[in-house]
């Protein structure tokens, strides 16, 4: 394991160390999901795998999109696209808090020099029909992680309970690397042959997306895509379990869930465009939740969901 006095030199090194650490603990290191999501929790490796009785331990980086948080790359802390590092372990291990604290040491945070606190934070996702209890973890007053024991997912009681840790990578890196503006983060080692800063990669991207999210995205098309995704999700789940080609039972929970994710992201885009009124908002969230619930129902009918034929 990396010596704790040995500080990481770059954003990517923090990711490497976290991956190494959780890999050593026994997690499968997965890769980002290839559909736009608002947070690492939406990755099927969390949402769906938190369901059912089977043990599970993964960690992965997940690019996350929050269209309303776009600031054209100018705000030191806010981005419409950023990275989360997600850990999900089911059942939650006995020494989960200490495991987490050790991971902070691994990325160069001296626990005797900083003020690490577990501050109440009840997590709830209305779009996923999920909730859990836990904390936001503060390092010297800054929230660096979310720590949650899932109690319900898509309306189902979590038994056993999954423990989830979400690291906000940019914030954490800014803190560890002593950088005041996210765009100044060294993405790779400053001494490398082709050094790039976070801003070299994302400054322009943030400005482009901010403009598109807020002012340009064609809301008519977005509304249509939302309807399509919802329709397809329901259609997939309504398909007979037996595939007539092979006479085999195949419940398509994951393809359906992809459509649910798309609907969720489309809703976020419409929200950023400011075309969803307060009253409609609840209705849209309810529609996405209904899809998530239906996908969960489907997943529980699969082998990974603990279904026994």
């Amino acid at each position, binding site marked *: 394991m990396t010596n704790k006095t040995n500080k990481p030199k770059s954003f990517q090194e923090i990711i490497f160390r976290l991956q190494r650490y959780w890999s050593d603990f026994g997690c499968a290191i997965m890769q980002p999901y290839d559909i736009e999501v608002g947070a690492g929790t939406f990755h099927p490796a969390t949402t769906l795998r938190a369901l059912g009785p089977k043990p599970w331990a993964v960690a992965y980086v997940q690019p996350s999109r929050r269209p309303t948080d776009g600031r054209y790359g100018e705000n030191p802390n806010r981005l419409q696209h950023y990275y989360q590092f997600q850990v999900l372990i089911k059942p939650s291990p006995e020494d989960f808090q200490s495991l987490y604290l050790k991971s902070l040491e691994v990325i160069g945070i001296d626990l005797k020099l900083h003020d690490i606190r577990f501050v109440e934070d009840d997590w709830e996702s209305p779009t996923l029909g999920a909730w859990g209890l836990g904390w936001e973890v503060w390092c010297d007053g800054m929230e660096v992680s979310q720590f949650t024991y899932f*109690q319900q997912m898509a309306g189902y009681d979590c038994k056993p309970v999954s423990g989830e840790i979400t690291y906000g990578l940019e914030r954490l890196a800014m803190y560890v690397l002593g950088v005041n503006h996210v765009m100044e983060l060294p993405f790779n080692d400053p001494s490398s042959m082709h050094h790039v800063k976070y801003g070299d990669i994302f400054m322009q991207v943030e400005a482009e997306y901010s403009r598109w999210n807020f002012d340009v995205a064609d809301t008519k098309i977005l509304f249509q895509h939302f309807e399509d995704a919802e329709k397809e999700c329901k259609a997939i789940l309504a398909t007979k379990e037996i595939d007539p080609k092979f006479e085999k039972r195949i419940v398509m929970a994951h393809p359906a869930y992809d459509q649910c994710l798309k609907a969720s992201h489309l809703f976020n885009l419409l929200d950023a465009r400011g075309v969803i009124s307060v009253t409609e908002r609840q209705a849209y969230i309810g529609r996405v939740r209904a899809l998530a619930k239906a996908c969960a129902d489907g997943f529980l009918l699969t082998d990974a969901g603990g279904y026994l034929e």
Partner: protein
Amino acid sequence: MKDLLIELFSEEIPSGMQALGSMNFKKLMTEGLVDAGLTYENAAVFFTPTRLVLIVSGLIDMSSSEILERRGPRTDAPENAVLGFLRSTGLKRNDLEVQKVKNGEFFFAKIKKPGRPSGAIVSETLKKTIEGFPWPKSMRWGAGTMKWARPLKNIMGILYDETGANVIDLTIDGLVANNKSVGHRFLAGQSFSVNSFDDLKLKLKKSFVILDQAERRAEIKNSATNGAFALGFDVVEDELLLNEVTGLVEWPTVLIGQIDKEFLELPAEVLQVSMRQHQKFFSLKRKKTNRIEGFITVANIKTKDQGATILRGNQKVLSARLSDAKFFLENDLRVVNSGMLSWIEKLKNVTFHKKLGNQNERVERLRVKSIELSDIVGANKKLVEQAALFAKADLASEMVYEFPELQGVMGSHYAKFCDFPVEVALAIREHYSPLGPTDKCPTEPVSVTVSLADKLDVLISFWKAGERPTGSKDPFALRRAALGVIRLLVENNISLDLVSQMSSLENEKALDLLNFIYDRFRVFLRDDDVTHDIVDACLAANSNNDIFISYLKAKALSKVLNSESGRDLVQGFKRSNNILTKAESDDGVSYELDPDTKFFEVKEEHELWSDLNNLSDEVAKAVAQNNFSVAVEYLAELRKPIDNFFSMVKVNSENSIVRRNRLCLLHRIKTTITKIADLSLIEG
């Protein structure tokens, strides 16, 4: 006798749940022990973010034994029945007693139920307490079934005296009770064993944990005050925040920082709310400038750099937060510069309540109502209209979206920025007040008008929608709104006919709302030591449904009724009124005419009549000036002539003319007194 010590060690429990949790812990444990027959001398409970500690001292070693008596079969019952009884009681035939009761002679068994050792009772009680603990929100973890506010990691439980300590025998969901505790997560070493409460306290302190919440609280408060003083600051008092912070730390370290100069331009409220809400910082006011320029953060650790790193980190977070606030403020000011009207338009998209339409419609109602009330309150109509129109504008601002508790406050700042008149800016800030019984009540006429209009509109709108509060549920704070109406009227001497304000409601709903406000009025006066019957007596004599006048009457009456002459007046009035009411109902007439002095037979009648005439004028004069204490004192003077009258005169005289004349006299007593209050409603 032994002392019982329990520590329930868990992952961090939310600060707001700790005090109530610890009280419940003590209550459930001590009540459980006493119910099982164990008495004790003292009990106390302590908490930190990660532990609940209970000490019960002087717990007796055994519950006392009991003798239970059981009736068996009759003495002449078949042998099998007797043998069965012996088997079930575990006794021999010789042990049985024979007793005669009214339906025969029976065997009786006396079964001794021995006392039980405290250890067994303690572990049963603790198990029950943990399993049924009433956390407001609890959770499961891992693969277990136990529930706690956050994962429970260890149960330390010992019964001890000077000869030693015994661990309680208890296993719950894999946790086995032991005699171990552990100190501060980052500062302390290994876990340690504990043999008494003093031992625990001492070892915890050596391991960087102050167990006693009161001690932690005092430590934070003192260090904060002294530290701030030394740097020329005053701590802005915040008891709730102090309580919260006490529940977030085991080893408090107070660190003082200064707010970056570039943010000092932000409104003080924004600085305070942002620091308190997001960072749990105390605000510091610099004595010299009387401005908020510093902050205190309370860390949970002592570091070798005296907290320099921690402070630097916190400062950075604060700057980021405040630059966000600045960003919102700048965006808002762009709209403010163009006159804020676009916000009022935007309020069309903000729902007020699903049955009550949007905030824009609410603003229009508020504007109309405010103008309507401005004459009654005596406020400038133009200013009132402007204040009402912009009262809710900030609900569409970015700053209030981010910090909802700054509603009104930001609107007021923005109004000043627009160079609106000071009265308007003040009214925008104050129109939400008073927020409860102790909050400051507006006194400036423009503020009073808009505030009153806002509260009346809320009440009337909710009643119209059929959304009155039921039981203890009052999600829209309508009780508070009603109390606000009362305080605004009473504290600003405003006479207002409430019913005329409710003309848009159906009769039944208007009456219900009126009674709802009257209920609050009774509570309001009860807090002022005026009993409900006095309030009812004044409300009954209140033809205009006027809260302010009823208040004056009730206060004046309450003072007089506390004296002997006041109580006698009530008795005299009741007597007079009873006779009159009965006669009027028997005779089917109302004795409204003035009595004729020529039919008076005794001087007491003349005296009463002339006193009534004289006093009526005086009372009317005093009432016209709203001087009810004087009016009530005049009424009290009637006590003597009324008493004299009744002691000398029989109202129901055989002579029907004399009788009618006397009843007319009684009627006059009634009309004179009920100008102030219907004393028949006074109890006792």
